[in-house]
C-alpha cells in the first residue's frame, strides 16, 4: 500500500513529511495525466485542423481531376492511382520474399550463426531512416539497373523498406502456431515442407495478413524515399505500366503544402483526408482479419 497510518499530532515534522509525500504522489499523478492529455490533445488539434481546412475542398471532382496550376480545378487522380499502383507492386515484390525469409528464420534457421546474423541485420535494417532507402533506390534501381524514374524503381525501393517489417510480423504469426501441430504432422510421415505448407501456413495466414497490411499501410504514407528514388512532383497523367513515371499521394500533398498560396493548402488538407481514408480502410481490414482470427482460435 502506498499510504502510511496518520500520525496523532499534526505539528509533528514526521507527520508533515508524510502529508507532503502524499501530496507529491497525487501531484505527480496529475502531471502525468496532463502530459497524456496534451499528447491526445495534439492529435485532436491535428485532426481538427486538417478537417476544417480540407473538408470543404473534398468532392468527387477533386478525387477524379488532374493537377492544375489553378488550385480550384486541381485534383489528385494521378497521385491516387500512383499510390495504389505502387503499393500493389510493392506487395507483389515484398510479400513472397518477406514471408519466405520469415519461414526460413522461424522454421529452418534455428540458432545457427548464419540465422542469428541475418536476424541481427534485420533488426538493424528496421531502424535505418527511410531516406537512406531512397538513396539506395536511386543508386541501385534508378541508375545502376537502369529502371529510370519508373513505378518499378519506386516499388522496388519501398519493397526493400518494408521487408524487415514484413519479416518481423510474419515471424510473430508463425511463432503463434503451436508446436504440437508440427509434431502431429511429422508423426504422420509428412516432410518438413509438407508440414509448413499444409499445416503451419493455413493456421498462420490471418496473422500474416494482418502484419502485411499494417506494413503496407506504413508504406503508403512514405514520402521521402520516393522523392529521392525518382517520383515526379507534378504528374499530369496516371501511370499505366510499371515503366511509367509516377507520383503518389504524399508527394502531391507535399507539393501543395510547399506552395505559398492558401488555396493550395486547402488542396493539401483535402489530399490528406483522402490519404487518411485510404489508411483507415486498410487498417479496418487488418482489424477485421484479427478479429476473425481470434474468434476462430477461441472456437
Amino acid at each position, binding site marked *: 500500500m502506498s499510504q502510511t497510518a496518520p500520525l496523532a499530532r499534526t505539528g509533528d515534522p514526521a507527520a508533515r513529511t508524510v502529508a507532503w*509525500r502524499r501530496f507529491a504522489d497525487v501531484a505527480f499523478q496529475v502531471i502525468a495525466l496532463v502530459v497524456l492529455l496534451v499528447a491526445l490533445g495534439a492529435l485532436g488539434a*491535428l485532426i481538427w485542423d*486538417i478537417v476544417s481546412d480540407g473538408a470543404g475542398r473534398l468532392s468527387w471532382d477533386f478525387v477524379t481531376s488532374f493537377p492544375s496550376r489553378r488550385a480550384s480545378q486541381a485534383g489528385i487522380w494521378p497521385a491516387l492511382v500512383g499510390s495504389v499502383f505502387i503499393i500493389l507492386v510493392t506487395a507483389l515484390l515484398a510479400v513472397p520474399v518477406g514471408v519466405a525469409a520469415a519461414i*526460413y528464420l522461424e522454421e529452418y534457421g534455428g540458432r545457427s550463426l548464419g540465422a542469428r546474423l541475418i536476424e541481427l541485420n534485420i533488426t*538493424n535494417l528496421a531502424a535505418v531512416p*527511410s531516406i*537512406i532507402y531512397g*538513396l539506395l533506390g536511386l543508386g541501385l534501381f534508378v541508375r545502376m539497373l537502369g529502371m529510370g524514374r519508373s513505378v518499378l524503381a519506386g516499388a522496388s525501393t519501398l519493397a526493400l523498406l518494408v521487408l524487415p517489417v514484413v519479416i518481423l510480423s510474419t515471424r510473430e504469426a508463425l511463432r503463434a502456431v503451436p508446436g504440437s501441430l508440427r509434431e502431429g504432422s511429422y508423426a504422420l510421415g509428412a516432410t518438413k515442407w509438407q508440414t509448413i505448407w499444409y499445416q503451419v501456413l493455413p493456421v498462420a495466414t490471418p496473422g500474416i495478413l494482418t502484419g502485411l497490411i499494417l506494413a503496407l499501410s506504413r508504406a503508403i504514407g512514405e514520402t521521402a524515399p520516393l522523392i529521392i528514388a525518382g517520383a515526379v512532383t507534378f504528374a499530369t497523367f496516371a501511370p499505366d505500366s510499371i515503366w511509367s513515371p509516377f507520383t503518389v499521394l504524399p508527394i502531391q500533398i507535399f507539393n501543395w503544402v510547399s506552395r505559398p498560396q492558401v488555396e493550395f493548402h486547402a488542396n493539401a488538407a483535402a489530399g490528406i483526408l483522402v490519404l487518411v481514408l485510404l489508411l483507415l480502410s486498410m487498417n479496418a481490414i487488418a482489424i477485421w482479419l484479427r478479429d476473425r482470427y481470434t474468434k476462430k482460435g477461441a472456437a
Partner: protein
Amino acid sequence: MSLGPAREPRRRSKRFEFIIEWVLFLSALLSIGTTIGIILVLTVETVAFLREVSIVEFLTGTEWTPLFSMPRFGVLPLVAGTTLVSLIAMAVALPMGLLSAIYLSEYASDGVRRVVKPVLELLAGVPTVVYGYFALLFVTPLLQRFLPALSGFNAVSPGIVMGIMILPLVSSLAEDAMRGVPRGLREGSYALGATKMQTSLRVVVPAAFSGITAAFILAVSRAIGETMIVAIAAGQQPRLTFDPTVPVETMTAYIVQISLGDTPQGTIEYRTIFAVGMLLFIGTFGLNVVSAWLRERFREEYA
C-alpha cells in the same frame, strides 16, 4: 533409373525439400544484400565526392553552398540544423514520453491503458507529411501569436511536432522496460513505506534504466533521420546557428531539396546527397547499435 517404384517419389520429394530450403534461405539472405547494397551505393558516391572535396573541408567547413558558382562544402551547418531540431524534439519527447510511460506502467488501470495505448499508436501511425502540414500551417502560426519575431520557417515548430511524433515510441518502449521490472522490487519498496511516486522514481525507473536509455537512443536516431516534417516546416537555409526562430536546413531536408530538382548523375551536387546520406547512415547506425546493445543488457539483467 533402376530404383523401385515406391522409392522414386520419395527421392524426388527429398530433392524438392532441398530446393525449397535453399529458396527460403536465399530470401532471408536478401536482407544482408540490402545492407551491403546501402553501404556500397553510399561508399561509391562518397568516395567520388571526397576525390573532389577534401574530407577536412567537408567535416569542418562552416559554409554549405554547393549550388553557388563558388561552391563551399562544409557540412557543419546541416549537422547543426539536424542537431538543433533533434534537441528540441527530444526536449518534448523525453520528459513527456517518460512521464506517460510511468503513468501507464505504474498508475493507470487496465481500462485506461486499453483506451490510451491505441490512441498513442495512432499518433505513431500518422504519415510524416501530415505532421509537416501541421507544423507549418498550425503550430508555426500558433507560436507566432506569442513570438511575433518567429520566422515562417524555423526549427522550433518542426522540433515540437517531431517530439509529438516520437513520443509514442519513447512511451511504449520505456513502458515495456518498466513492466519488465520484477514485482518483488516494487513490493519491497512499498513494505518500507514508500509512496507510489517514490517507488516509481527511485526503484522502478533506476531498475529499468538501461531499457529506458535504449528507448531514448532509438528516439534520437529516429529524430535525426526524420525527413518530411523538416523539409516542409524548417526551411532550406543551411546556417550554423542554434537560434530556433530562424530558418535552418537539416541533412535530410537537403537531400530532399536536391532530389526535387533533376540533378544529373555524376555531378558534384548529385554526389553531395550521398556524402550527406553516408554521414546520416553512420550516425543513426551507431545509435541503433548502442540501443540494441542496451536492450540486450536489460533483458539479461532480469532473465
